[in-house]
């Protein structure tokens, strides 16, 4: 949406400031709390931590343990969004105050902290979780204590809750368009599916396999394999790949295994400029560890790349680097995490209330034009409409946008025909 002058957060800020200036003469006449904010009793009927000047939200990610590597970016993005929203005057005239809890890469800890944020701290919303396991652990807590979770990671789908807004892609949004693209433009017929051994890669590969076998003409899967999390020896499977010579290597390998996989792939002489490799698990964050030279030429299917060329994104990247340092990189999930506070703000303002039930009910069709990925809208199933994009990894660790779907892709967490 480069043409929309109101799209970027920076633009929005400017507009708000202008509006604020216009409202200034009035300000002197009214008590401070009533300035821009409706009465607390009106916007908070369920005893959330909302005062006349402040609203408390939670941030719940792992800052220790194995997942800290991945979740750091999300924490940073959420803090940035909150700071920007506060700079613009907050939500319904109230500054956002956040309480950060550490899930410690441990799922019961997530559940425990989620409960603390909801029960003790009465958070009006929580931004957090990264792995499916942590989300599954907190989901009953959010449903029981009626909280609101904004979950940033692309994930396997098969879930939908009144109490969760999924700001990342569910599996079909990430997989189908990418496979169609590689089938069409690379004339790919044979696919080798790889994954780390847990639910997201397995479910995603299941959908990929169904799509390849059912909907792509003459295509087949020539291999499918899983490795324990943290596995670092891929030479055997690389030999198998050499043996089967697939048109496409479809890789959903996560975490530290990624580094080993791409380094060994390169060392084994598989040249990614000749061998098509499509991944849905490598973002700019992961490339930081893998090293651009090891993965250059691979294709990733995401909804966001740091290199996206639009005004929203430029402002976002600049603000992010200003806050967290020049060397930080922004991946797909980081961007999705950034959407969370903004979508929540828009929803609260649409509902005119912080009440969870009202926010949940108002969520469908809430839009965020300032999204770095462009424009997003919440679907009635609480997932986001967003585009699918394919990027090609470059030596400098960034992706070059190769393809994007013309329209927003509808989220379909329970895809018929893929079960």
């Amino acid at each position, binding site marked *: 949406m480069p043409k929309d002058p109101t799209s970027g957060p920076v633009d929005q800020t400017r507009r708000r400031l202008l509006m604020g200036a216009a409202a200034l003469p009035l300000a002197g006449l009214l008590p401070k709390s009533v300035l821009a904010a409706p009465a607390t009793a009106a916007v908070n009927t369920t005893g959330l931590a909302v005062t006349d000047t402040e609203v408390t939200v939670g941030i719940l990610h792992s800052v220790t343990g194995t997942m800290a590597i991945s979740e750091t970016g999300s924490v940073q993005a959420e803090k940035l969004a909150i700071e920007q929203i506060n700079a613009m005057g907050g939500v319904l005239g109230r500054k956002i105050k956040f309480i950060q*809890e*550490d899930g410690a890469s441990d799922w019961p800890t997530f*559940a425990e902290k989620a409960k603390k944020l909801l029960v003790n701290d009465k958070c009006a919303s929580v931004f957090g979780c990264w792995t499916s*396991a942590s989300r599954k*652990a907190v989901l009953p807590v959010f449903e029981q204590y009626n909280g609101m979770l904004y979950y940033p990671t692309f994930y396997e789908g098969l879930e939908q809750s009144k109490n969760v807004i999924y700001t990342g892609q569910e599996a079909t949004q990430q997989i189908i368009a990418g496979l169609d693209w590689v089938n069409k433009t690379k004339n790919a017929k044979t696919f080798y599916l790889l994954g780390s051994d847990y*639910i997201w890669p397995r*479910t995603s590969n299941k959908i990929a396999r169904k799509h390849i076998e059912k909907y792509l003409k003459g295509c087949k899967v020539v291999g499918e394999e*899983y490795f324990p999390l943290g596995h670092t020896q891929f030479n055997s499977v690389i030999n198998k790949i050499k043996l089967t010579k697939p048109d496409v290597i479809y890789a959903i390998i996560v975490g530290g295994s990624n580094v080993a996989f791409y380094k060994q792939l390169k060392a084994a002489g598989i040249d990614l400029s000749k061998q098509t490799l499509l991944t849905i698990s490598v973002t700019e964050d992961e490339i930081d560890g893998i090293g651009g030279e090891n993965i250059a030429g691979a294709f990733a299917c995401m909804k966001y790349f740091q290199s996206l060329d639009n005004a929203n994104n430029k402002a976002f990247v600049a603000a992010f680097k200003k806050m967290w340092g020049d060397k930080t990189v922004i991946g797909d999930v980081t961007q999705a995490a950034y959407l969370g506070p903004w979508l929540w703000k828009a929803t609260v303002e649409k509902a005119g209330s912080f009440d969870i039930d009202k926010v949940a009910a108002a969520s469908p069709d809430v839009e965020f034009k300032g999204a770095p990925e462009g424009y997003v809208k919440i679907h009635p199933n609480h997932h986001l409409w967003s585009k699918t994009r394919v990027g090609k990894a470059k030596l400098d660790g960034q992706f070059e946008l190769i393809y994007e779907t013309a329209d927003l892709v509808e989220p379909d967490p329970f895809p018929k025909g893929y*079960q």
Partner: protein
Amino acid sequence: MNPETTPRTGFLTRSQLVGIALLALLIVVLLPLTLDIFRLNLVGKYLTYAFVAIGLVMCWGYGGILSLGQGIFFGLGGYCMAMFLKLEASSVENTKIQSTPGIPDFMDWNQLTALPWFWKPFASFPFTLVAVILVPTLFAFIIGTAMFRRRVGGVYFGIITQAIAAILTILIIGQQGYTGGINGITDLRTLHGWDIRTDHAKFILYFVNAALLFGVIGLCFLVRQSKLGRILVAMRDKEDRVRFSGYDVASFKIFVFAFAAALSAIGGAMFTLQVGFMSPSFVGIVPSVEMVIYTAVGGRLSILGAVYGTLLVNFAKTTFSESFPELWLLGLGGLFIAVVLAFPAGLAGIYDSHIAPRLAKWFSRKGRTPTPAMPVSTPAE
């Protein structure tokens, strides 16, 4: 000062009774009165680890067998309970959006169309209760038989139990159609129609848990005070001497290992009930070793100390990670080192050497230690 120096005639000495009463006062009266239900539920969760820690006191402190895989049994017990609860939560009505209604959601996602055979008996609650204890105990019995009959001990045993924990984790994660994979078995709701998620239920479960805990403590005192308890200590000291006194050493080791496994399993099942899910992250190496530290902090020879140790470490973990999340690992690591270097007898040792003598002066004759005052010598091997 030393209970071991007088031949025991009764079941418990007075000081032990006092110790148990004090702990009961803390767990059954003090904590429920002062904590809100959220915190109380947390304490309940910690106390499920105490089962494991007590098992380790028996197995490691007395038996000299350091198992680094107690998570296996905690997990197995928890999974057995979770399977029952999951089946109840997956009624046809609750799961009607699935392609195959009536089976757990994760099975449906993994294209299973029927309940696997080994899930079927878990529809029965009595069966589940038996399985909670029996499955882990049997597993421990098999491992124990294979290892102790072959005289695998000490460090080797620890490393092999770790490897088994690793194997089991990979299997559970990999066989997600049958186990729920890395997410575990989640979204457990009711027990025989009784909603276990409500505050009221958590309150009741807390007391059930506490009652079981004291039952287990009593049982452990009984075992420790029996001749079997002394044979364990003897075995730890001089295994060969016990063997050449006509005892089948392996069977005693198998017994105490399986006993500790059974205790861990009870903890696991109570964990599932109180927390509402079970996942492979409790089966692995890291939680298993962490549970050893609970025991070490409490004092590896003190049954009651294990409970205090568990509570202390977990309270510290929660508080630390709420206020200084980044420092928590440093604190935990430091605790490991401090306990080993400075306080090998743990809290119980501190109590024995610093508090008990003063109490003894105070109460003149009554001040016997509630915890066994056997000096901590290193486990054999």
